[in-house]
């Protein structure tokens, strides 16, 4: 029996999510920090409950079993949910300051113009007195197709319904959206004049009630001065500040602009770093109405899908051996999927664990295990003398720790494409580069590696978000140790790859082979070779 799904928000996107889930008979609970908003007319039922004026405070548990504490009118409420969908609306800030303007009766933000156009009939409108309107959009800061669409639609209405001459001043006109190029043509045909700036900028002057805009037109090279009756200033769409609270409450990633969802292709369209928490529409970025509807359907799909339960069982999960746990809490702080819980003991939530191994690599007590990641299993794959040595030439033993999502796949592609790879290359597959610890690297070095590579996903492409960054830190530290003890730093290398980079995999590994071949065998090894297997260029070195 599946638990109810919690939907956060009260706007069109939240309503779309709810509608989709209700259609398939899911139980939902809606919590909005404001009033019912778009849910007006919805009555509580067995499948639907609406909590208004409700702000979340904390969240425990994991996918299938979230327990959320919230406050509703200063009273606390507890919500149990199996899945959570964040669908909070975004906000807008007017760009007056970007253009050095102040709001006034004839300098208005884009939203205000939309209201003027919607509210009144042409005859009664304040717009009836106006002859010339200028839109300023994307001149100082790049615009977005969502804003461009609103600017062009407003301009079209002003031309057609109000017979007002409109000018759109912009840099790059954003037509990257369904129907926007057609709309652009339509506005031009209706009489809108576009003035585009490339390297120059217009001079914008506000004196009491008049606005003066002066510029050199880049096409005709002529000086122009426009004195509009009304100036419409574009807006920047920003994330709701409530999202900052939610990212903390849920331990989920946000992007640089405060929208929930890291800018990582593996999260598209609606996933977060936490299983069972989805994010849609205006909570994850600047999206058109169509894209918000698509998000709502994807969220419903993710909630309904059996996929997670069925497929993830194949993953090796982390296990904590509590007798070894020294409660350093590294696992709790570093787990990118927030799959470690603190009860009386530190525990792994198996349903939330994605098996990345970041916890094992950073466990000070050596208490966390993931099958296939333990040293013995890995060292079993690397044995001195594994690499056949030809007479007089040195074939280095190169150990590449490869992320299963990227470098392992890239290697297979390289082989398919017929690229030659180094003879002495040994690949050790890891679920994530973040699973590689100091122990792994030193053990492999001790076991005969002449060179070690960590081949990770590119930054911003790590399924566990920071696994590749952790790997980078490990490499940096060990290189530091190498330089102190006078061991060649070049023997350890970290590179990034994607699954489709077969050619680059061969470049990187072959280049590394060259580097290591030039260095010669690792001196950690020189006495471990049986006499009859000594490598040729070690002769005279062993005395």
């Amino acid at each position, binding site marked *: 029996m599946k638990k109810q799904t919690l939907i956060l928000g009260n706007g069109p996107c939240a309503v779309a999510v709810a509608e989709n889930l209700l259609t398939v008979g899911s139980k939902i609970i809606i919590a909005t920090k404001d009033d019912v908003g778009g849910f007006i007319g919805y009555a509580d039922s067995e499948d639907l409950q609406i909590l208004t004026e409700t702000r979340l405070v904390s969240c425990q548990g994991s996918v299938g079993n979230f327990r959320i504490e919230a406050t509703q009118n200063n009273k606390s409420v507890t919500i149990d949910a199996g899945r959570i969908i964040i669908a909070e609306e975004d906000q807008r800030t007017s760009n007056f300051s970007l253009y050095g303007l102040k709001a006034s009766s004839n300098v208005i933000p884009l939203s205000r113009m939309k209201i003027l156009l919607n509210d009144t009939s042409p005859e009664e409108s304040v717009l009836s007195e106006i002859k010339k309107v200028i839109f300023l959009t994307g001149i100082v*800061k790049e615009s977005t197709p969502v804003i461009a669409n609103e600017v062009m639609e407003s301009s079209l209405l002003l031309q057609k319904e109000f017979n007002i001459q409109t000018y759109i001043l912009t840099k790059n006109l954003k*037509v*990257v959206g369904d129907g926007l190029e*057609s709309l652009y043509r339509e506005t031009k045909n209706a009489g809108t004049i576009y003035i585009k700036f490339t390297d120059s900028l217009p001079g914008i002057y506000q004196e009491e009630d008049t606005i003066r805009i002066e510029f050199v037109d*880049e096409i005709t090279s002529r000086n122009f001065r426009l004195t509009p009756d009304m100036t419409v200033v574009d807006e920047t769409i920003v994330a709701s500040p409530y999202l900052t609270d939610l990212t903390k409450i849920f331990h989920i990633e946000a992007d640089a602009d405060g929208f929930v969802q890291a800018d990582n*292709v593996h999260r*598209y369209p609606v996933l977060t770093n936490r299983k069972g928490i989805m994010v849609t529409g205006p909570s994850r970025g600047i999206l058109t109405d169509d894209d918000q509807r698509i998000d709502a359907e994807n969220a419903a799909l993710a909630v309904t899908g059996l996929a997670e339960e069925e497929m993830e069982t194949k993953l090796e999960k982390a296990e904590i051996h509590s007798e070894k746990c020294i409660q350093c809490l590294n696992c709790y702080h570093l787990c990118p999927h927030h799959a470690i819980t603190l009860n009386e003991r530190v525990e792994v939530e198996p349903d939330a664990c994605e098996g990345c191994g970041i916890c094992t690599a950073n466990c000070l007590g050596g208490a966390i295990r993931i099958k296939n990641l333990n040293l013995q299993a890995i060292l079993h794959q690397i044995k001195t003398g594994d690499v056949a040595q030809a007479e007089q030439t040195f074939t280095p033993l190169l150990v590449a720790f490869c992320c299963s999502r990227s470098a392992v796949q890239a290697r297979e592609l390289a082989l398919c494409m017929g690229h030659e790879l180094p003879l002495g290359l040994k690949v050790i597959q890891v679920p994530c580069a973040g699973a590689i610890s100091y122990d792994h690297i030193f053990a492999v070095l001790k076991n005969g590696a002449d060179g070690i590579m960590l081949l990770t996903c590119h930054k911003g492409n790590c399924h566990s978000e920071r696994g590749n960054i952790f790997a980078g830190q490990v490499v940096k530290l060990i290189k530091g140790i190498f330089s102190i003890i006078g061991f060649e730093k070049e023997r350890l290398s970290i590179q990034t790859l994607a699954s489709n980079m077969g*050619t680059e995999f061969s470049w990187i590994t072959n280049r590394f082979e060259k580097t290591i071949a030039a260095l010669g065998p690792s001196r950690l090894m020189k006495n471990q070779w049986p006499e009859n297997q000594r490598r040729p260029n070690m002769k005279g070195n062993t005395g």
Partner: protein
Amino acid sequence: MGDKNVLVIGGGTAGLSAAVELANLGVHVELIEKSKFLGGHAIGYTCKAIENTCVKCGACMVEEKLQSAVFHPNINVLAASQVQNISQNNRFSANIRQESLVIDPEKCTNCGLCLNRCPMEGAILQGFSKNNHPFYAVNIKKCLYFKDRSCTICRDECPETAIDLDKKASEHTIEADAVLIAIGFKPFNPKDKPYGYGRFNNVVTGLDLERMLKQSGRVKKPSDNKLPQKIAFIQCVGSRDAKLNHLWCSKVCCGSALRMARLIKERQPKTEIAFFYMDVQTFGKDFEPFYREAQKDIRMIRAIPGDIYEMDDRRLKINFVNNSTHETKEEIVDLVVLSVGITPVEDIGTMSRIFKIGPDESGFLRTDHNGVFTAGTVQGPMSIPETIANSGSVAWKIKKYIDGLTIDD
């Protein structure tokens, strides 16, 4: 659960993504693909990461979808297959013709000997992904055996006896509760534009460049395989073009071209790059910082060139009008990359006929009625991430339809 069947026509990003979503919901999927390799155009795209950082082009996502689809127990794939006709009587019944694949996937080990030994260039085709299995296919349009039976080298030398040049095409009947048309797009063919595509070797399309970078990791001049000193990208070729009545922005070209331009600057830093454009379109959340960096390295020229001539030394002369001076200017480069637009694929005609649904005014196809659905760029221009999102939403609609939860108007 499990007794519903969906026919997905097209094995590109959209078809694969929707198939995987449906299959994850326990729906059985029959996926048919016209070409010999799954993955559509995008499986040939290169990873454009720079400074070890992902730039979110989405190319690796196509690889991931392909991998999920080919190993999914609920998905059955038929490559080199096309719908002959279809009838609907509650369920759909489709007759599928599968061309001979010649190379037996059960036996082929992807050793590549067939390609190495084949005397005819282009007669053995190579896949783009390790999940294209077999990684090789016989192109019967070029193969000498199919021309006059004069050559059987590949068959004779294949160590696994995986090649059967006499293998016949086969017919299949697929019963389905719903059909998804995900037949993708046609890259605009720029041969009629005055840019010399098809006549001058060193004029290539953005797609050609994607594949070149994926194959060899570098950009080279097709004429002599040497590194170009100077490259020009020309945007909006076949998009935003009133003369062609192409009143749409293809959405993906600014992102693809600027990302490739920066990748080239990183790998071949001496290359000079000029970028001819109308308006730079937003792509991705990191557009602003990305574009700022791009402008440092790449010369942005706001003009669409008039024409291109090849000079005696095979360099290319681009003529354009400078906006501020109104003078005709010229730019001499070694390689021109045309950012060709996304246009409706010809098979939309066939699909319209088979399913009795008409394309929109631009020629793209969009429907979700009576058990027939479309997803991806058959609906119009979309980036890879957008296609994946679109396909998820369509998979959801299909699921609701086959479960009887959709009320058709």
